[in-house]
Every structure is written in structure tokens, then in C-alpha cells.
């Protein structure tokens, strides 16, 4: 009944989003249409405003509505520590931990020859310029612990180390609060490899 026309278009647009299948897309579309017109206008305004006012921070390349972004502009943060992550959402995860008080650098991906992604497709040049600019004492490579993330970390460490900056890699191991019996074999053996002296 709505095979074309504005309703079908709305369903199609929702279905393009990640994690949204055709059924959910339909549900969202019909929900919005069942609500007062303001709901749709608010959503549309929020979408366009977010899109129009968001760009990459010129310092860390995270997505931001201000220049520089809130983290880069915060004088309480330690500019000597730089945490390199793959995606903006990784910054969010790190920030939630509240355990890191340095600055970030967002690569916007990881090295993957099979997808044609090399250093030029990432923000590697910006990272190197930033470090060459001075003031950074430690770079924490917080790329994902998979083949591509590890390759990216190894590659970056090779480029950064000669600049006389300490390079570290995020540890992998057991999730906090989980008991050993529920950890899978791989995580456990990784945690065993990365064990440390008690102090």
C-alpha cells in the first residue's frame, strides 16, 4: 500500500541506518507518523543541526561542534599524554572510564589493505605533525585488539618511537568484576601473557 510515496521513502531512509532492518525501519516510520507533527520537526531539526554544526576538531580530529573541541580546549587536561583511537565512539568509551586525563587523536579507521585503507586514508599525517610540534611525552595506542588494530599500532609505533616519545599499547586481559570461570580461554591466556608483578 505504501510501495512508493513519502511513507515508503521514510522507511527506506531508516533502513539505510546501521543496525536497522526493514521491520524496525517500518516501526520507526509509523511511530513518527502517529505522533504530533512537532515530534517529526524536532527530530528533523536535531538531525540537520547536528550534521551542519559538526566537523572534525582541527587538533584531535574527533567530531565536535566547537573549534577546538571540548576536550582539546580543557586546560585541566594533560597535553603530555596522547591517546590514539580508531573512532570517535572510542573517545566516548574512554571518557566514560574517567581514568584518562590526557588528550586524544582520532584516526578514523585502521590500516586494512583488503579495503584499500592505508595511512593516507587515516589521520596519520596530522598525528605526526602534532607530535613533532612538541609537548607530547607519551602516546598510548588504543586501537582495537584485532589484526588491523594491531597492525596500525605497530606501524604508528615505528613512526613515533624515533621522535623520542614513549609509546605504549593498551593492555588486554580480564574484564573487571568477572570471575575467572566465565572468561574465555583466549582472554585468559592473553591475560596470563600480560601478567604483572604485584606491588
Amino acid at each position, binding site marked *: 500500500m505504501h510501495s512508493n510515496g513519502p511513507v515508503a521513502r521514510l522507511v527506506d531512509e531508516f533502513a539505510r541506518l546501521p543496525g536497522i532492518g526493514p521491520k524496525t525501519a517500518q516501526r520507526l516510520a509509523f511511530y513518527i507518523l502517529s505522533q504530533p507533527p512537532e515530534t517529526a520537526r524536532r527530530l528533523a531539526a536535531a538531525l540537520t543541526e547536528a550534521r551542519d554544526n559538526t566537523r572534525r576538531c582541527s587538533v584531535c580530529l574527533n567530531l565536535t561542534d566547537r573549534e577546538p573541541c571540548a576536550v582539546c580546549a580543557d586546560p585541566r587536561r594533560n597535553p603530555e599524554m596522547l591517546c590514539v583511537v580508531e573512532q570517535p565512539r572510542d573517545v566516548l568509551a574512554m571518557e566514560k572510564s574517567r581514568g584518562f586525563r590526557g588528550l586524544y587523536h582520532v584516526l578514523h579507521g585502521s590500516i586494512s589493505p583488503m579495503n584499500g585503507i592505508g595511512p593516507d586514508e587515516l589521520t596519520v599525517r596530522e598525528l605526526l605533525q602534532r607530535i613533532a610540534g612538541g609537548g607530547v611525552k607519551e602516546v598510548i595506542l588504543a586501537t582495537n585488539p*584485532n589484526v588491523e588494530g594491531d597492525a596500525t599500532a605497530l606501524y604508528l609505533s615505528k613512526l613515533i618511537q624515533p621522535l623520542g616519545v614513549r609509546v605504549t599499547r593498551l593492555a588486554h586481559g580480564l574484564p573487571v568484576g568477572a570471575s575467572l570461570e566465565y572468561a574465555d580461554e583466549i582472554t585468559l591466556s592473553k591475560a596470563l601473557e600480560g601478567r604483572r608483578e604485584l606491588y
Partner: protein
Amino acid sequence: MFFKRLVLSNFRNFRDLSWYPYRGVNIITGNNAQGKTNLLEAIGFCTTGLSFRTSREKEMIKDGTNSLQVSALLERNGVEDDIIVRLAENSIAEFRLNGVKQKKNRLFLPVMSVSFTPADLDLIRGNPAGRRRWLDTEVCSFEPAYAYHLHNYNRVLLQKNNLLKEKIKTTGFSEILDSFNLQLINYGSRIIYSRLVQLGKMASVLKDLYRELTRGKEDIYYKYLSSVPLGDKLNIEAITFSLNSAIASRSLEEKNRRQALVGPHRDDLQFYIGGMDARRYCSRGQQRSAVLSLKMSAIKLYHREYGEYPLLLMDDVMLELDEARQAGMAGLFALPLQSFITSTAVPENFPRDFKTVKITNGQLIEGER
């Protein structure tokens, strides 16, 4: 481990099947295309989480229905377990052990069955990829982390080959190549090491079983042929070192040929029977005995490691083995081992007592012992 009861619903051509298998040898007979192998597949599926026939698991759902279920009562080390495996058209398989949903895509680790199919008979004269796959499966059942190393190794290999093929001119090519090579060396040396450890454990068991099976005239042994020069010392540091230097010394060739030429993905296993290269100079019969002894060694090693026997699933290979070889298996069937053997006819002079069931058009009829 024993299956005490097996219930299938909507599995391949079985609508409903309920069966109390015998604790020893179960011979499943019936004409072709009646469902003998389907029954074996169901047992394999709930013990390994995989079908030994297909990678498209949903093929196993009976036509015209949208979900299958296999449930069973097992006995392991004297303890009974209830298992249920469900697979629906629109979701992934769900495994329950005593009512508790398992997080992983299988019930047991290590897997609890050893299967033996006609394709296995080509192991010795077939291509190296088949032998590597066999070896990898063996190692996986003794070392769960191996599957992870292998998976990552293959991923690194794919990326490295893509890099060599497409992106020779990319920025930082040689640094990127190094970062994949470092990982290739890391995972690759663990793989080679684990393979050698497993082969080391298996060598003497295999030799004894082969002698028993062939009434002891010849010896069987194997050599691991590696693209990496390996010394006599079996330690991971030495392998890492050799793999590293092998990659370094062939890096120019790799760039010219645009593919990764060194690592466990290029390795092979060579069998010798009575001192002769089994692939080239041994008869089909000798090759069969060798494969049979390999399967039997896997069962022995499994018992040595875990203190119980896995299930043995033999699909249509019994009649391919002559009476002497069947008799040679008597020792195996004397073990407290449950086996499921499909065959179009009941083998004559089978060395142990057994029970038969007949499968006709998706129905099971219990036979006489």
C-alpha cells in the same frame, strides 16, 4: 561419552525420531538416500557445533518447516547431561546444556566426536591443504587457543597478500608490511609450534596402531615439511627466530611474486610407510590403513588427554575396508567407545558385537544385535 537417547525433529528428512542407541557399536543400515548420513550429521552437529557436510547449516532444517531441534541425553564420566540444539531459519544455532543456554556456538570444548568419511581416505595422496586442515582440526581439539591463532593468522595472511598485490606504492608500504609480518611471525610460530607438539605426541601412538592394524610388518612415520627451516630444538623462540629470518631472506621474492611465500600456510606433512614416501609409492590399501590408524590415534590421544573416549562417527567407509583391516580395528571397538557406523549392508564377520538399526525414508527401525 555416550548418547543414551537421541531425539530429532525436523532434521533433514527426519520429522520425528526417537532412538536409544547401544553403548557400543551402532551400525546404521539402509538403502541410499534414506537418511543414514543425516543421522550421523545430527550427532556430529550437537557434539561439535558444525556439520561435517556443509557450511550452510540451514540446509539441515527439514523442507517445509522453519526450525530444527536435536535433543539428547548424554553420559560423560558417569554424569548425565541433557543437551538441546535448536536452529531456526532466521537465527543462529542455540545450544543448551542442562537447560542453560551456552554463550558459544557449540556445547563442548574440546569437541566430543571423531568423524571418518570417504573424503578422509584421500588424506595421504590428496593435496597439502587437506593435510593441513586435518592437522589443524586435530590440534584444535587439544588446544582451544589454537583456533584463535589460526583465525588471526589467516586474517593477517589475507591482509598481507592484499598489500603485496594492490598497494606496493602506498605510503609507508614497507612499514605496513613489517607490521603485518610481525603479526604473521607471532601467530605463525605458535601455529608451527603447536602442530609440532601435536605431531610429537601422535608419532608413537600412530606407529603402534599401524603395526597392530597391518599385523606388524612396516613402520609408519611422518615428517613436517616446513617453508621455515626448523632445527631439532622444539621451542617457540627458535621457531620465531627461523620464521623471522626466512621472511627476511625471501622478502624480495615475496614482493616480486606478490604473495606471502613463507609460513605455516605453505607447510605440508609427508608420510612414510616402510621408509617409502607413502604419497607416491604406497598402495591404496597401505594409504587406507594409514588413514585409519591416524583416526584411531586421535581417539587414543583424546582419551590420554581427557580420560574419556570421544564418539566415533564412520560414514560409509566400513565396506571400503577389507576384512583384515576390519579385524585390525577389533582392538579399537573393544574400548568403552560408542560408535556410529553407516553402511548399505551389515559387514560380515564384524570383529565385535553390535546393534543394527535400519533407516527407511526417514523412519528408524531397531534391528537385532
